[in-house]
């Protein structure tokens, strides 16, 4: 099934109108790179938007143009898969602030130079605004569903709260309605690693090769740990040594887990822009859906008639179950139709991307209802 050919269209939309941002600026000339899968039906009622996570992109089920690896949710999106492209028209866009074709800090500012740190600080809601503009251009009024995991879940929540008439359902996986102190803390470690790299140059590194690779790699290493569970790391690596019989009494990557993290960090720098990492993590840290709506999360959903489904994983300590449950309680208080469940999976936060058959059943069931 996973080998079935999948028809995708990769396009970039240039927004005709400037985007008004939460920070107060107007951003002109915004471009939104996106892919679509499947066919939009005649009355345009079968469209689903998938929002990607922090380091994801719009190549949700097509090979990544840089790494050549399968799309990040290829196991979920395709013909006959839980998000069935035979049935639904799938749209996935690179977020505003990203580095895979949508406007971000590496893009050209009106003066012809890269924005770098002149790029405005954006929010999760700004990311969603850009994608709402995309829907407008496609002539799609109401979606069958919005779907997202992690930061994608935040966008799905923001979409359902702020554009309640534009989706009939929202599926939010391993996510949260706001960033906790711990979430912000981990992101700050990553940002400081980037900014401490002498090659960062206050963000103006675009004509100096690849820029702060070491800092970005460390940021990715620290973040990657938060995506896995302790038990998962132990099972995968334990204290096993990397291609050697004994410890070297040095600072090489003696342990397999060190080697793995170094590889994850380095390979990340091939496909991600350090300034994008700063801006997107900032947007996540600023996210607090209740705060946007007067402090009470239930009020964020007061106008929503959509069905909601929230899924958490028991080994996810980055966005733990209590975050999803509190969203479910708020939706209840708002009288919304909401389902919530904690699934058991060993992979920590990354469970939403990996082989969890129970998740497949929930996704397929929720979308077909």
């Amino acid at each position, binding site marked *: 099934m996973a080998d079935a050919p999948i028809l995708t269209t990769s396009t970039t939309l240039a927004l005709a109108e400037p985007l008004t941002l939460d920070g107060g600026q107007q951003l002109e000339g915004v471009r939104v790179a996106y892919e679509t899968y499947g066919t939009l039906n005649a009355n345009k009622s079968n469209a689903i938007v998938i929002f990607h996570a922090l380091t994801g992109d719009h190549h949700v089920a097509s090979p990544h143009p840089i790494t050549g690896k399968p799309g990040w949710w290829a196991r979920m999106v395709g013909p006959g898969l839980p998000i069935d492209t035979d049935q639904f028209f799938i749209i996935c866009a690179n977020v505003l602030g990203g580095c895979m074709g949508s406007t971000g800090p590496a893009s050209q500012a009106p003066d012809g130079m890269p924005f770098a740190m002149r790029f405005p600080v954006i929010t999760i809601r700004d990311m969603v605004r850009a994608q709402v503009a995309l829907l407008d251009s496609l002539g799609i009024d109401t979606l069958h569903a919005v779907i997202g995991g992690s930061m994608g879940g935040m966008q799905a929540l923001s979409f359902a709260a702020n554009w309640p008439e534009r989706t009939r359902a929202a599926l939010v996986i391993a996510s949260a309605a706001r960033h906790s102190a711990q979430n912000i803390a981990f992101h700050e470690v990553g940002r400081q690693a980037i900014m401490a790299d002498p090659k960062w140059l206050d963000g103006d590194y675009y004509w100096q090769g690849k820029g702060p690779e070491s800092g970005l790699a460390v940021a990715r290493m620290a973040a990657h740990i938060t995506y896995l569970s302790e038990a998962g790391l132990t099972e995968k690596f334990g204290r096993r040594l990397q291609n050697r019989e004994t410890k070297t009494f040095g600072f090489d990557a003696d342990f397999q887990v060190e080697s793995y993290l170094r590889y994850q960090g380095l390979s990340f720098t091939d496909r991600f822009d350090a300034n994008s990492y700063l801006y997107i993590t900032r947007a996540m840290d600023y996210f607090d859906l209740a705060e946007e709506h007067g402090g009470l999360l239930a009020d964020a959903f007061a106008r929503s008639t959509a*069905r*909601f*489904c929230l899924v958490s994983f028991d080994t996810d300590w980055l966005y733990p179950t209590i975050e999803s*449950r509190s969203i*479910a*309680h708020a939706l*209840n*208080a708002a*009288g919304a*139709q*909401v*389902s*919530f*469940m*904690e*699934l*058991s999976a060993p992979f920590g936060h990354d469970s939403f991307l990996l082989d969890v058959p*129970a998740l497949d*059943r*929930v996704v*397929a*069931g*929720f979308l*077909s*209802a």
Partner: protein
Amino acid sequence: MSALRPDLAVIAGAVAPGSRVLDIGCGDGSLLAALRDQRDCDARGMELDPGNVAQCVGRGLSVIQGDADADLAFYPDLSFDCAILSQTLQTTMRPDRVLDELLRIGRTAFVSFPNFAHWRVRLSLLFGGRMPVTHSLPVAWYETQNIHHVTVDDFRGLVADRGYRIEHTWFLSGDRRTTGPAPNLMAEHAIFQLSR
């Protein structure tokens, strides 16, 4: 559609069409689906077991994984016409508080439970001297989820103590309705409809 469990069939028949319903301990969602499909109800559920919740979501139902003891507090007052607690009361930590929550959330409540004073249970305990394992209480004492066994008369007592009204009662014996005398002795299952 498969036949509903007898106590659920009684409840399904008694819920007013078009009601907003919360089924606490909704299992695989059979009653919710019946209420939605046959009674045009806005039917929501709460269920402890994630596998059951996933099955409910697959049926298009809105079900929250949660615990009757802990998670009812998050529902607003009178947010449902009707709160249902079928064969779950005896598994809760504090049945009295759960009952209060039902009648805070719902205008009416349906509560069904296996009657621990049924004659078979009494005989089993009297002559066997051991905790009963019967048709309606099929699991041994050490692994049963029933931590607060209750009888028809006990439940009437709790309802009276809390000042609630009994709107209706139904009794089952061997999966059939029984209208005979002495339900505390003769009924295997009891279903109560309550209001404030």
